């Protein structure tokens, strides 16, 4: 007699526990992959890398040329080339500096966006399962902590979203620890 309402309730919330678990798992996985993801995205967004590579190779060529010129015999040419190399190197330096600053900015933005999305997801999950439990067990099984476990739903024997989120976060963090 006692188990019947539990079964009906369970049918209504079926799969919620898995949804929360998979969301937490995805979030944690993305957090681990975030540095590589952000570097890939920044590489896609920054198309100056090619130009930079060109400049580098140009400098390399000029340096090679400079090594072939005798400073004593062709001083004017040597000095001109050296000035050119210096100018190009300065230009490259400024370019690299700008690119690095841009890269840091992109990474920062990606991080912020990720955390905002994660927070939004968690808030929406809490919002959705605020009054209904993610799964239901017979309340005697969870005694004497049934109220704590069921918070904030208040359903006897239910597992509340807060408790389940905490548990999932902890377990997923343990599972993903070797990869982080």
């Amino acid at each position, binding site marked *: 007699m006692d188990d019947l309402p*539990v079964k009906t309730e369970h049918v209504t919330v079926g799969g919620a526990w898995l949804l929360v678990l998979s969301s937490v798992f995805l979030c944690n996985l993305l957090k681990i992959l975030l540095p590589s993801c952000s570097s890939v995205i920044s590489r896609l967004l920054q198309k100056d890398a090619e130009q930079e590579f060109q400049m580098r190779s140009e400098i390399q060529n000029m340096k090679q040329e400079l090594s072939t010129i005798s400073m004593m015999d062709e001083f004017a040419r040597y000095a001109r080339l050296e000035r050119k190399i210096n100018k190009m190197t300065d230009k490259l330096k400024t370019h690299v500096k700008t690119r690095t600053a841009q890269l840091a900015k992109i990474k920062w933005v990606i991080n912020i966006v990720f955390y905002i999305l994660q927070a939004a997801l968690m808030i929406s999950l809490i919002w959705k399962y605020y009054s209904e439990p993610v799964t239901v*067990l017979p309340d005697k*099984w969870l005694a004497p902590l049934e109220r704590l476990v069921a918070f904030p739903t208040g359903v006897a024997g239910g597992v509340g979203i807060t408790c389940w989120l905490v548990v999932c976060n*902890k377990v997923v963090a343990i599972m993903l*620890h070797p990869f982080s």
Partner: protein
Amino acid sequence: MEPEPLDGGSPSHNATDTASSSSAAGLTASQRRAEIRRRKLLMNSEERINRIMGFHRPKGGDDESHSESKLQLESDKPSPLPAPVSKRVVLGDTVCSLAGTADHAGSIGEYKGERKDTFNKPPEAGSDGTGELRQRSRGDLLEAPQRAPRHGLDQYLSRFDEAMKLRNQLMSEKPSQENGNAVEEFDSFRIFRLVGCALLAIGVRAFVCKYLSIFAPFLTLQLAYMGLSKYFPKSEKKTKTTVLTAALLLSGIPAEVISRSMDTYSKMGDVFTDLCVYFFTFIFCHELLLFFGSEVP
């Protein structure tokens, strides 16, 4: 600046004063001028620090404090190099031994050296770490109120000193912590605990939960772990020196108390992790059983 001893002026202190004043009498005019200049410089630095720390002295008591600082400067003079002070800060399993100003390394050492010039400690001052600090704070209450700011400053500085030591310790520990982090997280006992919790959850879901609350077997398991922990090799768990520990140390709580509470805190964290794994495995098994329809609660 040298802090006064507890009783306001020990015989040794007086003896140093008289000795220094007699030596001052034997100085030539140029040496005296140099000495006055040195005192002036020292006093200026002291005033600057007081201003930074927010200790304002009343104008009326200026002369008294001035003469007092003079006296202290006199007592500073005979020992330009302070005697090595040995301090031991016990935090967790790590013991940080610091020997006065002589063997301090790095930037902190430099900082300390600078500070020690103006705020010299008596050799007996650092013999007992934080316990001594407490004694001194009690002594402050007994002393005249006009000395309180000075003692407060000294106390604060000695605590600050300890916080700097902690920072130093943290700096030296950091690379080793980073290397041994994974080992620390997943030592044999930890893996054993987690696997045990998961297995117990499966067992409880299969046989026990119909008759008993699921938390009862878990508590029994935790008791068993407490007993079993003796038989596992203790991993060298270094206490993480956090901002919290530094703040607690600065507020005058002995390092040993902090380390004990940190130990308890970490044990509670372990139990919580076990509970999470246990509960997760239980729910997971329960849902799997429900899915395959073999059992209905």
